[in-house]
C-alpha cells in the first residue's frame, strides 16, 4: 500500500464523468479529497491523496490521463518546517488553504498536520522568518 498526493485539473464541462467513484470502484483505490476549487476561467482543481496497491494506483492514473482534458500532477515535494527557529507568530496560518497549519489554542504553538498539507507553498512566502521551505 502506498499514498500519493495529486492535483487534478479539469475543465468544468467534463465533470460529468464520475471520476472519483470510478477510481474507487474500478481501481480499488481510496481517494481522499483534500481541497477542491474552481478558478475564474472555469477550470476545476482537485487535490487528493490516492491510496492503494502500487499497480492499482498506476492503472488509476492511466485511466485519468485518458479522460478528455483532465491533467494530473503528482506532488513530489514536501514541506519542511524548521520548528526550532519558529517563533509561533501565526502569520503562516493566515494563508494556509487546508488548515494544515493551526494555532493550538492552549499553548499558542503552531501545529502542522502533514496529512492535510497540499504542498502549495503559500506558507513559505508568508512566514516572516523563512522557516518553511519546500523540498523535493
Amino acid at each position, binding site marked *: 500500500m502506498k499514498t500519493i498526493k495529486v492535483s487534478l485539473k479539469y475543465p468544468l464541462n467534463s465533470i460529468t464523468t464520475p471520476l472519483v467513484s470510478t477510481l474507487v470502484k474500478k481501481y480499488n483505490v481510496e481517494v481522499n479529497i483534500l481541497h477542491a476549487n474552481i478558478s475564474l476561467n472555469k477550470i476545476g482543481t482537485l487535490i487528493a491523496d490516492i491510496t492503494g496497491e502500487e499497480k492499482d494506483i498506476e492503472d488509476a492514473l492511466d485511466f485519468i490521463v485518458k479522460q478528455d482534458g483532465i491533467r494530473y500532477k503528482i506532488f513530489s515535494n514536501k514541506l519542511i518546517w524548521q520548528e526550532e527557529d519558529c*517563533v509561533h507568530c*501565526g*502569520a503562516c*496560518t493566515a*494563508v494556509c488553504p487546508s488548515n494544515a497549519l493551526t494555532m493550538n489554542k492552549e499553548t*499558542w504553538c503552531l501545529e502542522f498536520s502533514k496529512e492535510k498539507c497540499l504542498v502549495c507553498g503559500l506558507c513559505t512566502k*508568508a512566514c*516572516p522568518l523563512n522557516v518553511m521551505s519546500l523540498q523535493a
Partner: protein
Amino acid sequence: MKKTIYEINERIKSGKAVVFTAEEIISVVEEKGVKKAFEEVDVVTTGTFGPMCSSGMFINFGHSSPPIRMNKVWLNDVPAFAGIAAVDAYIGATEQSERLGMQYGGAHVIEDFIKGKDIVLYAESYGTDCYPRKDIKTTINKYNVNQAYMFNPRNCYQNYAAATNSTDKIMYTYMGTLLPEFGNVTYSTSGELSPLLNDPEYRTIGIGTRVFIGGAQGYVAWEGTQHDPNQERLENGVPVGGAGTLALIGDAKKMSSRYIKAAIYEKYGVSMFVGVGIPIPILDEDILLKTTVRNRDIHTLLVDKSGKEDLNIRLNYEQLRSGVVEIRGKKVPTAPLSSLKFAREIATELKSLIQKGEFILTEPVEKLRTNGQRLNKLEEREVKP
C-alpha cells in the same frame, strides 16, 4: 492603603516579592477579591513579541588610524545613517541591502550583531584636514565597538487595528498576506498580556521605567512616535485602536537573539520582532484591577487595508483569538501576527528575574502624556522655489 515603589523594591531585594503575569493575575483576583489580592501582590508582569518596524541601533565604531569622518556607512551592505558624528551611525531595522534588497536588511544586521557575528563595515568620506581618510573596509562585532544601543522610536503600540482585504486581489502588507474578498483577518498585540493594555492610563509606565527589552534591561526613553492618548476609550480605560506608544532604549550588547529576530514580510519589506516585557508595580487597588483586563474587554477596529471600504466593525480579542470572526455574514478565519507564546515566555522570564531580585523597579521620572494633541496629518503644501 497604598504601597510605594520603594517598599516593593525592598521586598524584591529580599527575594520576597509576590509576582504574577498579567494572565495569571486574572484568576488570582477572581479567587481572592481585589482587597485581599492587593495586600499580597507586588508586581504584575506583561510581555509582547511582535514585529516593530520603528526600531534600530546606534553604534560607535571607534576611530581608525588614520581617522575618517564617515559620511556614508554600510553594514553588511545595508546603508546606515551616518549624518551624525565621525564614527557614529544608526542602523534602522527596515533598511534594505543594496544587493539583496529585502532578503536582508537592517534587522538582520542587528540580529547578527547580537549573535556576536562579524559584520562588514564599509564607510566613505570626502576627507577633511582633521580626518584625511576617504574610505575604510573592515569588520566589527559586539565585542570591539564602543557602544551599541537599540533606540526604538516606537514600540509597544497600546492596541492595533485588525486587518482584512475587500478587493478581489491578494494584498501583501505589514499585516501579513491578506487574501481577497475578506479571505482572512490578521491581528497584532498580545491582548490581555500586552504592556500598555494593563496600564491603560499610564499610571505606572512612564519615562524612565525600567523594562525588559530583547533579553536585556532597558528603559522607556520618551513617549513613542504617534503616541495618541486621546483615542476613544471604553469605560475600563482601554483605547479602541492604536493609542499610546513607547520609545525604548537598551544595550544591544547585552541582548539575546532569542528575543530580537529579523522578519521579512513578502513584497512589503523587512521588520524586526522585538521582545518587550514591562513590570507593573501594584501601588493601589485601581492599578491592580486594571491588570485584570481580559481579551473580551479589549476592543479594536477592523480595517480594510485596501482603504476601499469603511467596515465599521469592532472586534474584541476573544473573538479574534477564537479563530473565526464574522464580516457581513461571512465567516472569516483569523490569524495572529505577534507571538503569544513568546510574549508569555517574556512575561514569565521577567517575573522570575523580579522574584530572584535581579530586576529592580524604577519610579518614572516623568509621566507619559495622557491628553493633548491628536495625530497630525501630513499636508501637501505649496513649496516656494
